[in-house]
Each structure stands twice: as C-alpha cells, then as structure tokens.
C-alpha cells in the first residue's frame, strides 16, 4: 500500500472530512483513502439533502461530494452549502467527468474535481492543493485532477 505524509490542519489536528455518495462502497473506498492520508471522517451522507444537514452538524474541513445522487444531486448541494458557508471546501468525486459537469460544479463553488475510480495519489495532491498545504501541488487547472480538460 502506498504511503502518504499525513495531511494536517494548521493547528496540527487531523483534517475532518464529510463523505457524500449514494454508494456505500464508494464511501468506504474514500474513507480508506482518508485514513491513509491521516484524516478523520466527520460524517457520511448518501444524498445532497443529508449532506447539507451533515455539513451544518459537523462543520468539516473538506467535503468529498458525488454528483449523481437521489433526492438532491451533488451540484445543487454544493450551491446550497456554499451559499450558507462561503468558506466550504468541496471536492467533487464522480464517474461522469463531462466538461460541462465540472464547470457547473466549479461555478457553484466546488474547489476541484476528481473522476472515479479515484487514484489515491491524485486525490492526495488535490487535497493538498485545496487545503492550501502546497499551492503548487495540484496546480490550478482541473485537468490535472480529472484528466479530462485539454
């Protein structure tokens, strides 16, 4: 298994994550990676509505958000969370990497995008960038994460 240097908050505590995906296995897979990165799971949600409630309850450092979900899709949930919490750091995680999907998510306030199946090393670099740990880690363009934009 690949080794990663722990990603920590500025106060040296573990980064707290909210994991949002309607698939239990996708959530477990992301949680496995979060643990490899030295993080802590603040909460889980299977749809956009629950994600908003969980965000308000747990105030995570990072949200990993699927796009296609029942009840409320990820992009709408991003819009609602960012409207209430402008500081929210949300990374979209989806199998569907259409350019228009990515752009819509970024316009609503998501910070980055990663396509499933998620490669741990790609997610790690994106998290470093989004957390501001290394401004050059994932670079500005989404293409480095989703490997779709040219």
């Amino acid at each position, binding site marked *: 298994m690949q080794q990663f240097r722990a990603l920590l908050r500025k106060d040296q505590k573990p980064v707290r994550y909210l994991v949002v995906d309607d*698939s*239990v*296995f*996708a959530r*477990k*897979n992301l949680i*496995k990676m979060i643990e490899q990165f030295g993080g802590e799971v603040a909460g889980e949600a299977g749809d956009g509505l629950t994600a908003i409630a969980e965000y308000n309850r747990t105030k995570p450092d990072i949200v990993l958000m699927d796009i*296609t979900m029942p009840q409320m899709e990820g992009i709408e949930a991003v819009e609602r969370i960012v409207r209430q919490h402008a500081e929210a750091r949300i990374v979209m995680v*989806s*199998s*569907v*990497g*259409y*350019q228009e999907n990515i752009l819509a998510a970024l316009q609503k306030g998501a910070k980055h995008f990663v*396509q*499933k*199946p998620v*490669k741990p090393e790609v997610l790690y670099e994106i998290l470093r960038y989004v957390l501001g740990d290394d401004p050059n880690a994932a670079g500005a363009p989404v293409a480095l994460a989703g490997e*779709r934009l040219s």
Partner: protein
Amino acid sequence: MRMELIQPFINAADAVFAEALQAPTKIVDLSMDENTYRRKGVAALIAIKGDIEGRVILDLAPEVAMRVASHLAGAMVPESEQVVRETVCELANMVIGNSVTLLNDQGFRFKVFPPEIHMSEQGLAGTVDTEAMVLCIKTPCGEIYLNIAMHYLHRRRHEQAPVPTLD
C-alpha cells in the same frame, strides 16, 4: 455495429476494473452476438437515449461481486443480496460514467438512465434480439461480462450533411 461507439465502453471498462481493483485485467472472448442476452450472474442494464442509443449490460457472478466489494471496502464484507446489488451498480456507474464522458466530449448528446439490476432466475426483460458486442474481462476477482449494443440516432451536428435543394 459502430465500433467507434463501442470502443469507449471497452476501454473504460478495462481501465476502470484495473484501477478499481489495483491489478492487471485482460479482455478475452470478444465476439458479436445477435441473440437475446442470457444473463450469467447479476446484471446491470443501462439504457442510453439521444444522438446515440443502445444499452450496456454488465454481468458478474454474485461471488465475484462479493470479492470486488471486499476489495473496494478494504476488508471482508459479509455476503448479502444488497451488497451484491450495490457492487454491480457501482461498477456499472463507473464504467458508464467514464465511457459517456468520452462520447459527450466528442459532441454526442444523450441521456443515461440509472442501472436496472436483474438478479432473479428470469432472463433480462426488454432485451430483444439485437446485434451486440460481447466480451469478458478477466480480473483478479473473477470474470466480468459486458454486452454492448449502440447505434447512431443522429450524427453529431457538425457532421450532418446539408439538405440538398431542388432546382
């Protein structure tokens, strides 16, 4: 059968399984089939409608689904019908998501319907005889089958020939 419509699904499936299972995979038994699909295990059927239309069936034995589930979860998962359904759905979503991304970025517009899971002893409802590409992908968790039937409904806008005018 248009290979340019089928190829993205084959490439995506191979890449997704190799990446998700963190191991090499191998495509075997690639063939054309014109008969009604006969399910081998638990199948997810995904319909696509728009500029291109068709359907993709992803099919695997329940024990293969359980091995995939344990791998994705990073620990042994107790066997249940729900776990098998979830695993087949998640694999289908990843394969379809990656392949339709390529087709969408090529200019095709279409709607992808959520996976329908078929587990009962009956065959797949609604799969009339249609020409399909059938393939088996060997993974460390076992064999995963794909059955892909796809055709053009409309050409991409920039490829449509101008309408001839009468003198």
